[in-house]
């Protein structure tokens, strides 16, 4: 028991201290948690805190569940609709470009079609955690385009949930078209079922766990989240999507805000364990074999994100700087890419996906914030003719007010 505790404690502490170094220079935490796993794992010389990644399996699973549970909890249909059709349109364009480009890239890699689907999601979907934190830290929340960036993130979040739900039957080792079809039907029924509960039964579920006592509420929602995630996994739908859906249900309950608050420290701790455990499975020696694909994927992501940024800015009448801000900010990749890589690993897909995603996330996590902080200067690289010759539009909010001083 003692050695397990030393391993777990060492894992948390190593992840925390390494990420702290990163924070000093303004880098996101997720890649450092992962890097700690690589460094203190069995595949690198020096101290191996954890010899067998399976030892952290349960902690990592809880991290994954809490990540998705919190995502579902925070998701609000109101937020999605508040931006209107234009926002949905921009989100759709972003996903079409990036997931579509990722799919073409994944297919070109020739690792297999299931692998291509995982790669598409891993390079196509931004990290909500990294993007949100970046906006706060660069003090850009007051910028007009930040609202749009956060809107795109919301659209991406809901897409991720659907993607996870549909990917699982494909990855789940179902043989033949009919079996896949059955798996799809189960996944779909699960989504619709819990979606209906969120819409009409949230009050009942809420009453089941609602108490004014924070301690009891925490114990109850943790139990509910893990139980539904486990049930989903048993049904072949994936624990991630189960956790997301029960989060969605509780988001409609009266205690949603309190749960949101209470779940944060739990999520932070266990998610770090998830990223660390992912790092344990990575052998840095494999990095060279995937260096080429990672380089291409990074270049592709930067081009596609900037393209999406320019289109989004054009649709909203923003200028060059705002376009660069959008493009570079949503470049952040993190938890979702790693979740997809974990799914791929547990489905026994091509072993190169793990190192590929790990290196891709690590490099983008460093490049993304650095580029974003300099987006104003980099904006000059965008051709001016892409933007309407209207008078220079400020990237920040003009004085508002219905009386109108435009």
């Amino acid at each position, binding site marked *: 028991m003692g050695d397990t505790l030393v391993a777990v404690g060492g894992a948390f502490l190593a992840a925390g201290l390494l990420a702290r170094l990163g924070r000093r220079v303004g880098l996101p935490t997720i890649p450092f948690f992962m890097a700690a796993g690589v460094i203190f794992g069995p595949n690198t010389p020096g101290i191996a805190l954890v010899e067998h990644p399976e030892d952290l399996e349960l902690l990592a699973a809880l991290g994954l569940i809490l990540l998705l549970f919190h995502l579902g909890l*925070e998701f*609000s249909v*109101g*937020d999605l609709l*508040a*931006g*209107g059709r*234009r*926002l949905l349109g921009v989100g759709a364009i972003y996903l079409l470009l990036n997931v579509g480009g990722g799919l073409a890239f994944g297919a070109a890699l020739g690792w297999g079609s299931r692998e291509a689907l995982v790669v598409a999601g891993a390079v196509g979907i931004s990290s*909500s955690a990294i993007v*949100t934190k970046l*906006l*706060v830290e660069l*003090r850009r*929340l*007051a*910028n*007009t385009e*930040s*609202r*749009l960036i*956060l*809107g795109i*993130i*919301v659209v991406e979040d809901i897409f991720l949930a659907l993607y996870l739900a549909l990917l699982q039957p494909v990855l789940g080792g179902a043989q033949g078209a009919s079996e896949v079809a059955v798996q799809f039907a189960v996944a779909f029924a699960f989504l619709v079922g819990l979606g209906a509960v969120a819409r009409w039964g949230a009050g009942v579920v809420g009453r089941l766990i609602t108490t004014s006592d924070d301690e009891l509420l925490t114990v109850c929602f943790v139990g509910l989240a893990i139980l539904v995630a486990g049930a989903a996994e048993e049904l072949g739908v994936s624990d991630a999507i189960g956790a997301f859906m029960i989060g969605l249900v509780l988001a409609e309950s009266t205690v949603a*805000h309190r749960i*949101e608050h209470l779940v944060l420290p739990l999520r932070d701790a266990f998610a770090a364990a998830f990223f660390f455990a992912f790092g344990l499975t990575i052998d840095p020696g494999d990095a060279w074999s995937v260096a080429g694909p990672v380089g291409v994927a990074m270049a592709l992501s930067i081009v596609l994100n900037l393209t999406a940024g320019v289109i989004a800015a054009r649709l*909203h*009448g*923003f200028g060059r*700087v705002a376009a660069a801000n959008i493009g570079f900010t949503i470049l952040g990749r993190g938890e979702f890419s790693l979740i997809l890589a974990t799914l791929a690993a547990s489905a026994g897909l091509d072993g190169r996906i793990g190192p590929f995603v790990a290196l891709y996330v690590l490099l983008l996590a460093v490049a993304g914030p650095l580029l974003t902080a300099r987006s*104003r200067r980099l904006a000059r690289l965008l051709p001016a003719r892409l933007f309407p010759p209207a008078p220079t*539009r*400020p*990237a*920040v*909010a*003009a*004085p*508002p*007010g*219905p*009386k109108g*001083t*435009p």
Partner: protein
Amino acid sequence: MNRPDPRPSPKLFGGDVTEVALPGIGQRYDIGVADGGPLTVVIHHSGRRDLYVIDPQGDEPRAAVTLTDAQARTLGAILGGAYFKPAVVEEIEAVIGDLLIDWVTVEETSPGAGRTIAELEIRRRTRMTVAAILRDRVPLIAPEPTETLLPGDRLVVIGRQEDLTGFRRHVVG
């Protein structure tokens, strides 16, 4: 076209404040003020507040301040004049929608001085409510109707804006 879906909330603030939801973060309020640029306040779900002074010419804010929930409330109270009333300001009023909160001082010569809230029939005759009495800097929250108003008392009153004048005439003189 420059601003996506600004949602003016004239009911709350009298018209020159725009409220925008920031998904996953909280709410953003743009307050049109001088210097050509708006003052922007971001209230995070966590209670954290960010204050931005926007530079209309530039892309980065001219100033940015981050406050905790408690600090923000203190700052709000200071700005609202709860601690110190500048001499040039005759009256301090805070209007939230139809609701008005004001501070008035009872003078030696005030018709209300030396009389109780019940005797003055403040609520019935002025439709205003005395929410607190600040006496020797000690607040007396929700005073009883039997409480006597003394010269020098500062009254925190709540009511409708249109009733304030009547209240002043009746109590302060």
